[in-house]
């Protein structure tokens, strides 16, 4: 099937089978391998991308279903070599260890801070509860979100 998806601001055309997952489209066709395959059943959040600005699981969306929509992945967050304030905050707060979950966390954080520029700790925990991290624990991640929120507000 012919589809057209805007990926990180660029319009792209694809010819895909209907059973292709959006996750595999961005990873295998566009080589945007920042988005990760974790569990495949909606529990880990590693495959989170923004679909028309909303955080969704790309392992649970058919590529054909994203036809005509905007997809934003971790590769589109930084502006060239200049990191996004959210990415900077994750590094500064030590909220990264192996890095596997980080793209998903950053995309979810992006959606959170767009919706709520000054979230409380409880709100951050609630919003990020669909993202699993098995290395750092969540304390530094929450600090990173708070610091990113501060940076973005100023």
């Amino acid at each position, binding site marked *: 099937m012919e589809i057209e998806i805007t990926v990180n601001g660029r319009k792209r055309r694809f010819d895909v089978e209907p059973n292709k*997952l959006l996750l595999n489209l961005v990873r295998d066709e566009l080589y945007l391998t920042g988005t990760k395959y974790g569990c495949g059943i909606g529990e880990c959040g590693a495959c989170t991308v923004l679909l028309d600005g909303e955080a969704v699981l790309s392992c649970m969306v*058919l590529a054909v279903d994203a036809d005509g929509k905007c997809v934003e992945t971790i590769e589109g967050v930084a502006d060239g070599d200049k990191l996004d304030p959210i990415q900077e905050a994750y590094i500064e707060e030590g909220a990264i260890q192996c890095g596997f979950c980080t793209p998903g966390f950053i995309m979810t954080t992006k959606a959170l801070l767009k919706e709520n520029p000054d979230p409380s700790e409880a709100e951050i925990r609630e919003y990020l509860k669909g993202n699993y991290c098995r290395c750092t624990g969540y304390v530094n991640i929450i600090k990173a979100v708070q610091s990113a929120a501060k940076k973005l507000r100023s």
Partner: protein
Amino acid sequence: MYVNKVNTHILPIEFEYHAPKSLDETVELLEKYGEDAHVLAGGTDLLPHMKQRRVEPKHIVNIKGIPELACIKEIPEGIHIGALAKLRAIELSPLINEKLPLLSEAARSVGSIQIRNLGTIGGNICNASPSADMATPLMAVDAKVHVYSKSGEKNYPIVEFFHGRGEVRLEQGELVTGFTVPHLPEGAGSAFEKIGWTTLDIATVNVAAVVSLKDGKIDHCSIALGACSPAPIRGVLAEEILRGREPSAEAMDEAVELIATCVEPRERWRRAPPEYRQRTSKALARDAVTRAVEAARR
């Protein structure tokens, strides 16, 4: 211990994809392909099921292209919620939060933000899972299910919709288009209680309660229970015994004993043994009714 041994990286089955733009087109496709067709709404249940080959449809009918199915609006009879309304939209809708806080509370309890951004209320109901988190509140508020087919629209109370054993009352060529919730009694309070392995997991037990008071006594009372019988059920006996009484500890004790008699948990359900569900349904029913009474007093 359950271990997922299936490759969930890909969809291992091939199917034909349809994206109808209207209701009539949709029901035509559903009628034509019958059992081979499956409706795709949010996909948060369907896609994992297809990955695990629990369902292998030959035709996928994506109904997202029918925007009028996603509406949430006030109508003279109450509130209408389209089948495609996302759980996140129900959670955030000012109308639902004001008029039917039970539904926004239940929607908020489902999975993660990413799941709620995809999952729809219609999908939650039509999967016929006994633990569906939107089914219990819709039952507690006496919602009506709207079903569309070639022969036109019909509706019936949601209690009649669940057949148990993962089945719903839908014939070939029929599509659930939405739900109408009648006005709640004046000053009614409500509460949704849920317990699962984690807050992200599906419910091991969930309970919804709606209570209204008159002169300090319980006037209207409805209690719905999920995940503790083959289909979501109403605790009718407990509702009857509470009606006309003050919400005292004794009344609650009697009511929850009756709850325990009406639930029928199954041995093979893997999240918890039957005794656990039986006891927990009592505890959660007590919590839900107590909190609903408090809300009604406010």
